[in-house]
């Protein structure tokens, strides 16, 4: 038996009931194990990413998933990826919320401030509803980061765009 490999699979396109059942059923049929997955609807478009491990090779996975894309409304990509170990952090976790009137450049301007201090985005969602634009991000900041200065820089960037921004700790309560 060959060494297990890890494959990243993306499925994007027109939403309909049964996509996940079909995709995961076909992967299960190849003996693959889903290690991590996320799926959401982006303005009604189906968007799913899966990481699966097993002994099936990339071409075999592509072949198994091909029927999903047969009607042309879904795009499926398969690519082998290396194992990554998420390091534990000595820094701190934060939640950034930005909301305001929609205009181009909100995400880039605000997130640039996070990048400037070496902050790492670990989760990000943006939504547009009517004229309201909303950004939610989970951020890891290095232990040496000056959070007050970052918060001030984020507020300045947000104010220039006419939106509001808040940065708050994402500590979990241990129970």
């Amino acid at each position: 038996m060959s060494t297990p490999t890890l494959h990243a699979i993306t499925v994007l396109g027109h939403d309909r009931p049964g996509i996940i059942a079909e995709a995961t059923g076909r992967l299960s049929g190849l003996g693959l194990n889903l290690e991590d997955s996320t799926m959401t609807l982006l303005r009604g478009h189906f968007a799913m990413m899966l990481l699966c491990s097993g002994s099936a090779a990339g071409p075999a996975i592509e072949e198994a998933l091909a029927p999903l894309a047969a009607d042309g409304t879904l795009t499926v990509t398969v690519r082998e990826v290396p194992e990554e170990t998420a390091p534990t952090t000595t820094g701190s976790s934060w939640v950034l919320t930005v909301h305001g009137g929609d205009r181009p450049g909100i995400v880039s301007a605000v997130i640039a401030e996070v990048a400037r201090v070496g902050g790492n985005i670990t989760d990000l969602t943006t939504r547009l509803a009517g004229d309201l634009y909303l950004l939610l991000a989970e951020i890891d900041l290095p232990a040496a980061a000056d959070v007050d200065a970052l918060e001030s820089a984020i507020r300045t960037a947000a104010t220039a765009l006419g939106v509001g921004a808040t940065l708050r700790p994402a500590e979990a309560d241990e129970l």
Partner: protein
Amino acid sequence: MSAGPAGPDARVAAWTEAELAVEGRVLEVVRVPEPVLSTPGPLVDPTAPETVQLAADLVATMRVSPGCVGLAAPQVGVSAQVFCVDVSAHPKTRDHHGTFVLCNAEVLEASRNEKAREGCMSVPDFTGDVKRATRLVVRGALPGTGEQVEITANAFEARCLQHEIDHCNGFVFLDRVAGAHAIHARKTYL
């Protein structure tokens, strides 16, 4: 001990594990997917010697576990309706009842829900956003004497009580998270 509890709450606030008169043992904390964590615990006789020993063991294990503010019997591998709580040293705590153990606890009243992120020694690799009542009335029995008590708890202590009562009923916080994206990989470990 808190400045405030009066009436029935004063009895709980005055309780300490010294009343149990047995030495607590430090037990191993089990983790999901251990089946005991998903099994509703049976009611116990709060005056039975094994319940008294279990109560002492829970407090002893909580005391040596960094950051631990509560521990339920299923977390030490025992399917039973017993848990201990002590939120007195937690920075988010307002008023509280110090250290206490409750047997056969049930929620009588719950209101004012708030969402917050929880972690659990039995689920070490995840945290999750959970909505819980911040005003709570709980009834249970004290181990040893078997006295029936009612506790009016709020804020962090109320959250802790609900988390531990859930354990006794075979639920972990993963069963209560607020949505599909409400689970997070833990980044720091106590």
